[in-house]
């Protein structure tokens, strides 16, 4: 073609920093894994079978919450309401189990509860255009208030009746030695990972997180898309609530408190950026393992709950600092 001009050939871009980026994305998790490895080696009980099974049962709840907010975080949205949402799902699931004794109906209710709160967030944030952090913080508080109200109204005094066999199976059961909850978590993680990584829906999610304005110009209905991601994160929080109910078996008003921050910490530590456009389910799962291991090691080493809370807070700050540093490096 006549229009081809060879002079652009010599100006190859400065350097292929993708490999560098991949590298820097791995730095944080690797450092933490090595540190945890050292602590784990000095904690004999860590490598016991009991501990692993305990971990494997505990992990899916945090895991589901974290992978649930991963897509919306990639799309540069924020969902901080999931802790209360999971708690609300615990209430509604428990109520339906008590009233109808039907597991499928209870499961459906739990997931729908979450989806509904997600839809509420979506309407306020994407429909009306309110700030996502403020809306979901407000939802976090408001739904928690609702939770407390429901418990105080004595809807859940029949704690022994919540020990529904099917529900217990979801929370604590084993299939060929593997916890059912872990199977559910793995399945959802795989599914979401494929959706994000391999489908048009996933590609659009990344595009929106990168540049919402440009995505809109290319005909992507960004508000609708992000709205769906809020519903998704709510629904998965609902599912996490169901598993939590099966595991704990009792309902208290303080259940699931602070889970949203643990989940967010896992997401950020894994490498999903709060500035949007970067991240994956795989990295969130890494983050979940790290957070769960930190908690487990602290418990095994008899660190008091107060120190645990303080340490988790510091981990969040460090994670956000490193996130900022890395995204700045990418900008340069």
């Amino acid at each position, binding site marked *: 073609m006549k229009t081809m001009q060879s002079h652009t050939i010599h100006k190859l*871009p400065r350097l*292929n920093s993708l490999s560098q980026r991949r590298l820097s994305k791995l730095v944080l998790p690797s450092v933490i894994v090595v540190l945890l490895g050292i602590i784990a080696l000095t904690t004999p009980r860590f490598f016991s079978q009991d501990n692993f099974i305990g971990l494997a049962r505990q992990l899916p709840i945090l895991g589901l919450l974290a992978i649930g907010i991963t897509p919306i975080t990639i799309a540069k949205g924020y969902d901080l309401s999931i802790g209360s949402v999971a708690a609300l799902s615990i209430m509604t699931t428990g109520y339906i189990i008590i009233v109808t004794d039907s597991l499928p109906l209870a499961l459906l209710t739990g997931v729908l509860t979450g989806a509904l709160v997600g839809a509420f967030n979506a309407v306020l944030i994407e429909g009306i255009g309110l700030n996502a952090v403020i809306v979901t913080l407000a939802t976090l508080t408001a739904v928690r208030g609702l939770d407390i109200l429901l418990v105080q109204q004595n809807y859940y005094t029949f704690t022994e009746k919540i020990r529904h066999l099917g529900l217990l199976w979801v929370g604590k059961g084993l299939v060929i030695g593997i916890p059912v909850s872990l199977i559910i978590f793995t399945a959802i993680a795989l599914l979401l990972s494929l959706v994000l990584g391999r489908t048009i829906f996933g590609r659009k999610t990344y595009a929106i997180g990168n540049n919402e304005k440009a995505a809109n110009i*290319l005909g992507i209905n960004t508000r609708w898309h992000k709205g769906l991601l809020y519903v998704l994160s709510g629904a998965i929080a609902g599912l996490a609530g169901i598993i939590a109910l099966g595991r704990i078996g009792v309902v208290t008003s303080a259940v699931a408190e602070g889970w949203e921050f643990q989940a967010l910490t896992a997401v950020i530590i894994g490498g999903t950026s709060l500035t949007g456009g970067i991240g994956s389910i795989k990295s969130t799962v890494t983050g979940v393992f790290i957070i769960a291991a930190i908690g487990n090691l602290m418990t095994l080493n008899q660190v008091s709950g107060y120190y645990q809370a303080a340490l988790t807070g510091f981990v969040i700050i460090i994670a956000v600092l490193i996130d900022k540093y890395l995204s700045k490096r990418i900008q340069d």
Partner: protein
Amino acid sequence: MLLDYDVLKVCAVSKTFPGVKALDRVDFTLHRGEIHAVVGQNGAGKSTLMKILAGNYRCDSGEIYINGKICDIANPGVAAELGVALVHQELSLAQFRTVAENIFLGREPVNRFGMVDRDRMNRNALELIDRLEEANIFPNNHIEDLSIAEQQIVEIVKALSLEPSILILDEPTSALTLKETERLFTILRALRDTGLGVVFITHRLKEIFQLCDRITVMRDGKVVETLTLNETDEHTVVNLMTGQNLDSYFVHDQGTVEPTDVILAVAGLTLPGKLNDVSFQLRRGEILGITGLLGSGHDLIPRCIFGIESVKPKVRCLGRDIRIRSSRDALRAGLGLVTENRKDEGLFLKMTVLKNMTLLVLHRVSRTLVRWIRRKKEADLATEYIDLLNIATPSANAPVLNLSGGNQQKVIIARWLMKDPEIFMFIEPTRGIDVGAKSEIYHYLHKIARTSGKGIIVSSTELQEVLGISDRILTVYNGHIVDDIPRSAATEELVLTRINGR
């Protein structure tokens, strides 16, 4: 030996970044009282050199003399002390502060109570502004109330408040209208006559010949040549920049567009306060230029038609009447839009070249039911267009962030070529792009219009560009289309007169 009029002398300066030699033994001198243009394509090393002078980078080897003394410009603070002031291309003023507050940001005069002495600050600011004989800017004006040109002048005042001996201006005119550019040039000439050394970086060669005394051409991190401007011409400079003979910058066929087939008709398009009753038609195979001064609204016309402004226009497109409520309607109607601001509205910077290109055609490379992307097919498609448009990228999977401006623009054009709309609209298609890539893009526009019979709208403030590629030029003044000039009648003077509302 250093002559006493060399305010700045750069000797054999080199700088290497991982993977690339950004500067390779660069020599450069700046005389006292001269305006010295530095030109080169993107990636030629201009900005690296300027950043070294401003203390943002340190050179690996070589020497820098300022006023005859060897210097180590370790950081921007040192640069300021040494008398080097750099005005960046992007304005960096605090929008909600006053002119005086911006000029003295971080070094406000204080009274004996340690509080900011506003009166003194405003007086000092006024003195500085008066030096430029600038009558329309006052120290207590808020930056947000000033025009871009006035903000540019405030930036220069701010730089001058440090009493520099070297003033570096990085593309100061890219957002200015012709009149404002003239104003800026008058100021720069006055500054030159006070003995200041001015380094002027621009992509607009014409301005250099209007303003500058000498020119240094850079290519691939080296200085190709330094010339005295009245001994050279534009053609020579372009050839030095590209390292080859580019004789067909624009496509000069006096193309025969048969004015038959109207594919887009806009009637009575109004955007309150910005556009008033805009009506025009676009024909198959035609390149329609729309131009006007900055703020005239010429760039809003394509944006409105594409449904990304606050109106929902009704247009006749390919024989059908359509109301365009959003970009989705526009896409469905067969329209395409390459927006002006690549980084803000075009690119997905953290995504790869490949993913940036295929966003509009993902359905074509995926299985329908679950919309599962076939990666092989997608990669093949991207590779095809990387070759077709001659995009310089290490691979389809390189981040688009690493590409030069020209290649980024080509990625966006590739995206739309894949989509293959019937009507292509471009806003400032070559802003911030080097000469070589510009020429290539002009050839593509021409090819799209002529061989595939599409309609093209190019909205641009670059007169040369509009005159060079359009079959017909619409001139916009104050939100109105004031004239419709066919190529045969279009001269620079006529278009200039029209866009100035005369």
